[in-house]
C-alpha cells in the first residue's frame, strides 16, 4: 500500500503570471502507478537476489540450433555474477521509481533495464550449470509462433473495444473457430477451406456478441462470459456426440507447414526466427499493419474510434453508432477466427475440448496492457508469447522449478502487469457502454 507520508511538493506559482494555465504536478494516478511499479520491480529484484544463492556454474546460450547451416557461437556467462548484477540493476531501477526522481525518458529507460535484467537474470539462473545450452533462436522463433493467436486475439479485442464493445468472448470465438477449422479441414483436407470455416465461425460468434450487446443491451462482460460457456458447451457437445466417435474422419485436419521465404530464411539467426513460419504467422504480422492503417488512416477507423469515445457526438454528426459497432465487432470476428484456426490447423491439427486454455483471456490482457492500440497490443502479445515459450523451453532444461510453476508464469505476468507495472491505462471512454438515444 502506498504511504502518504512523503513530503508534499509545494508549487511555486507565486511569481508566475496569472494568465498561465494551471500548473500540472504528478497526478495521483500516475503517482500510484509509479509507486506500485517501483515496489514490484524491487520485489522481483529481491527474488533474483534469492535465486543468486542457488546459482552455480556457467550459463550457456546457443544462438543457433544444432542443425543450422551457419553455426553461431554459444555464449557463456558466469552464472552467479550475472544473476547478482541483474538483481542489483532491478533494485536500482525499482528504487529509482520509488524515489520519484526519474524525469523525462528516465522512467522508460529504468523500466526497460529492469525488464531486460529480469529476463536475463532468470534465464541465466535457469541455464547455469545445466547440461544443455539455452537455445536462443528456438526461444525467439517459438515466441513468434506462440504469440500468433494472441496477436490475432488482441487485434480482435482492439477493433471491437475501440468501437465501444468490450469483448471478453475472445476465448469462445477462438474455441468455436478452432473447432470449425478442425472439422472442415478433416472433411475437405484443405487448409484454405479450414481457414475460411474458422473465420466464418469467428464472425458468427462475433455476431452473437454484437446482437446481444448492441441490440439487446446485455452487460458486455457478463455476456462475454456466457458466450464463452456457450462456445465451450457447443463445441464440447458436438465433439462428444459427433467428432469423438469418428475421429479418424472428423478430427484429422491437415496442418500448415512452415513456408520459407527465399533468401531471407537463410539469414543466420534472424532467418529461422522470422522467415520460416506458417502462413498464419505472416498473416498475423500483416494484420497488425492493416488494423493500424484501418483505425488511424481511414474514414471507417475514424468513425470506429469516435463511436467508442463519444457515441453521442458521432450520432449528432449523422453516424449510425449501432451500425459502426456492428461492423467493428464483425471485422474483429475475422481476426478471432484466424486466431482460433491456429490451435488446430495452425499447429496440431486435432481438436480437443477447451484446447484454447485461456489464450483468449491473455489476448484480452494484451489489449488492455497495449492500451487499445494495435501495435502496442501486438507487442504485448509477443511478450506473452515469449513468457509461454520460455516456460516450455525451461522445462526441457530440467530446472529445479516444477514445470507447473513455469506454466503459471504467463498468468502471473498478466496479474503483475495489470496490477501496476504498465500503469493506469485509459480505455476508450464509451467502452462497454451500450448506446441508446
Amino acid at each position: 500500500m502506498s504511504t502518504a507520508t512523503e513530503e508534499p511538493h509545494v508549487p511555486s506559482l507565486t511569481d508566475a503570471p496569472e494568465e498561465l494555465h494551471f500548473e500540472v504536478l504528478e497526478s495521483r494516478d500516475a503517482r500510484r502507478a509509479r509507486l506500485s511499479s517501483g515496489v514490484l520491480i524491487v520485489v522481483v529484484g529481491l527474488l533474483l537476489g534469492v535465486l543468486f544463492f542457488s546459482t552455480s556454474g556457467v550459463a550457456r546460450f546457443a544462438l543457433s540450433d544444432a542443425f543450422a547451416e551457419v553455426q553461431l557461437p554459444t555464449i557463456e556467462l558466469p552464472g552467479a555474477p550475472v544473476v547478482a548484477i541483474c538483481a542489483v540493476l532491478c533494485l536500482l531501477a525499482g528504487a529509482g521509481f520509488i524515489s520519484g526522481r526519474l524525469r523525462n525518458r528516465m522512467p522508460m529507460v529504468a523500466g526497460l533495464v529492469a525488464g531486460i535484467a529480469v529476463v536475463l537474470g532468470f534465464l541465466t539462473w535457469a541455464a547455469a550449470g545445466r547440461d544443455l545450452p539455452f537455445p536462443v533462436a528456438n526461444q525467439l522463433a517459438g515466441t513468434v509462433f506462440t504469440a500468433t493467436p494472441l496477436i490475432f486475439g488482441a487485434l480482435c479485442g482492439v477493433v471491437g473495444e475501440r468501437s465501444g464493445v468490450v469483448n471478453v468472448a475472445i476465448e469462445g470465438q477462438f474455441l468455436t473457430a478452432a473447432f470449425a477449422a478442425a472439422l472442415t479441414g478433416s472433411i475437405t483436407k484443405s487448409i484454405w477451406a479450414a481457414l475460411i470455416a474458422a473465420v466464418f465461425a469467428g464472425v458468427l460468434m462475433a455476431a452473437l456478441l454484437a446482437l446481444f450487446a448492441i441490440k439487446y443491451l446485455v452487460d458486455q462482460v457478463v455476456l462475454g462470459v456466457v458466450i464463452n460457456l456457450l462456445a465451450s458447451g457447443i463445441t464440447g457437445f458436438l465433439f462428444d456426440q459427433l467428432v469423438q466417435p469418428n475421429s479418424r474422419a472428423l478430427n484429422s485436419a491437415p496442418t500448415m507447414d512452415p513456408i520459407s521465404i527465399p533468401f531471407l530464411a537463410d539469414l543466420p539467426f534472424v532467418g529461422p526466427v522470422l522467415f520460416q513460419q506458417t502462413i498464419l504467422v505472416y498473416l498475423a504480422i500483416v494484420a497488425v499493419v492493416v488494423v493500424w492503417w484501418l483505425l488511424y488512416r481511414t474514414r471507417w477507423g475514424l468513425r470506429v474510434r469516435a463511436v467508442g469515445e463519444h457515441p453521442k457526438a458521432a450520432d449528432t454528426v449523422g453516424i449510425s453508432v449501432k451500425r459502426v459497432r456492428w461492423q467493428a465487432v464483425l471485422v474483429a470476428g475475422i481476426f478471432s477466427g484466424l486466431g482460433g484456426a491456429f490451435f488446430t490447423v495452425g499447429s496440431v491439427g486435432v481438436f480437443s475440448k477447451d484446447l484454447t486454455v485461456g489464450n483468449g483471456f491473455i489476448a484480452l490482457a494484451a489489449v488492455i496492457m497495449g492500451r487499445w492500440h494495435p501495435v502496442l497490443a501486438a507487442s504485448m502479445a509477443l511478450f506473452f508469447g515469449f513468457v509461454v515459450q520460455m516456460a516450455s523451453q525451461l522445462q526441457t532444461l530440467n530446472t529445479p522449478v516444477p514445470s507447473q510453476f513455469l506454466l503459471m508464469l504467463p498468468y502471473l505476468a498478466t496479474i503483475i502487469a495489470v496490477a501496476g507495472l504498465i500503469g493506469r491505462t485509459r480505455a476508450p471512454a464509451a467502452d462497454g457502454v451500450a448506446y441508446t438515444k
Partner: protein
Amino acid sequence: MIRPVANEAQRSVGLDLRSITKRFGSFVANDAVDLTVRPGEIHCLLGENGAGKSTLMNVLYGLYQPDGGEILIDGVPRRFADPKAAMAAGIGMVHQHFMLVEVFSVAENMILGREPGLVVDMKAAKATVRQLSQRYNLPVDPDALIEDLPVGVQQRVEILKALANDAQYLIFDEPTAVLTPQEIDELMVVMQKLRDEGKGIVFITHKLREVRAIADRITVLRRGKIVGQAEPGTSETELAQLMVGRAVDLSVAKQPAEPGAVRLAVDGLTVTNSAGAVVVDDISFDVAGGEILCIAGVQGNGQSELADALIGNIPVLSGRIRLDDRDLADASPRQSIAAGMGFVPEDRQHDGFIGTFTIAENLVLNRFDTAPFAGGGSLNLKAINDNAVTLRDEFDIRTPDVQNLGSSLSGGNAQKVVLARELSRELALLVASQPTRGVDVGAIEFLHKRIVDERDKGTAVLLVSTELEEVEALADRVLVMYRGKIVGIVGPDTPRDVMGMMMAGVGYDEAVQVAAGDAADAGKDA
C-alpha cells in the same frame, strides 16, 4: 409589452416549428409548441431547467422524433429522421455538452461524419479548418487535441463544426453555462456577427440578463408549453415571472448574521485534480459559527475540488484544514463526518444519493452503522424507518412511502433527502455545493430557509454556488474564486457587475473602478 401567443401571419422564408408535441411515457416534454426563426435574427428560447427547451431543439435536430406537429423550412414541411437529415437541411447545433471527441484533434472532429473519401486526408481537413476559422474569425489550431483546449475554444470548434456544414439556422443550447464573463461577451459578438451574415439563431438559456442583451425576439417556455412571447425590452422581473409562473422573490427572510468563534479554518490549502493540475491554489479563509460564507465563481474554477477536499474525497496536497479543534487535512470522509461536517455534494445523483436504495436507506447513508440504526453488526430496520418517517414530515419530502426507491423522487425531493440527512444531526460545519441546482422554485425557498436556520443554530456554513441570485440571497460574506485562487472576500451587497468582474479574475478595487466608469458611460448615453 407581453403579448399572448398568436399565429403570426405566415411568411414563407424561415424555420417554422408548428405544434410540436413530444412525450416520454406519460410525461409531456413539449406540448403543442410553436416557434419560428427568420434568417438574420436571434430568437431567445427562455425557460427554467426542465421546461422542455432542449427536448424541443433535439426534435428540431432529428435526435428525437416528435409525437405530433411539423417542421417547415421556407414553408416546406420536413421530417428529420436523424441529425444527418437536419444538417442537410441547414440546421446546426452548438450543444450544451459539447459533441466533441476529447481525444481527437480539432481537424478530426471537424471532418467526422463528413469525410470526403474512404481514406482520411488530414492535410485537406486541416486546410478546411484554417479557412473556416479565418472566414468567421474564430481562431483555432487544427492540430490541437480537444482535451487540451480551454472550454471557450472548444465551443469555438463546436460552432465551426456547425458552420462547416453550411448551417443556415444555428441552435445554441445553453452555451454560456460553462463560460467566464469575458468568454460570454466574446460569444455574444460571434452570435451577432453570425446574425448579421444572415443566419437564423435560436439561443436557449435561462439567464435573463443574456436574453435582454442580445435577443431580437423572446419566447418563454414553461412545463413544455409556450407561455408567452416578449420584446427585448421586457424587464427582468417580467421575464422571470413568465418563466416561473408566479411572482418570485428569491430573497430569504433572515436576520443579520451573528458570527461566533471561528469554527472552520483553512490555511494555505492546495489541491490537485486527478490529472495533477493545481485546481485549488494556496487558499486561506475562515468561517465562523453562525455565518454563511458563499464561494462564488464561474463553474470550474476550483470550487468543486475545494468542497471535495474539505470532506476528504480528494487528498490535500498541502495546507491545513481545522474544524473546531480537529485537523482534517488528511481526514477521510468518515473522519470528517465524525468531526461534525455535513456535506451536500454538487452532483447529487453521483455523490449524494443512491437511486436503487430506499428513501429510508438514503436518509441514513452516512450513519447507518451507528446507534440507533445499527447494533452488533446488524441493522435496526425499525429505527431506520422511523427516522425516515420523522424526516419526511419535517422536511416535507413528497413520497407516499419512505420504503420507495430513491429514484422515484423528483430532483427537489431528492435534494431534500440529502439535506435532511445532513441537517438531522449535530453539525459543526455544513458544506453545501449548488444545493438548489435542478430544483423547482418552491423547493428552493424551503431549502434556503433550512440552510439559514442551520446557521442560526451556530453552525458554520460554507455554500458553493455559481448562481449570483443564490449568493446574494444567502451569503453573509462572499469569497470569489477564479482559477483556484481567491480574488477577494466581499460583502453580499457588492454590486453584481463588480462581482461579475471579480468572477473573471479582476481584483475588487479595479472592478469597482471599471464598474463606476461603465455607469458613467451609460449615464452619458441616456
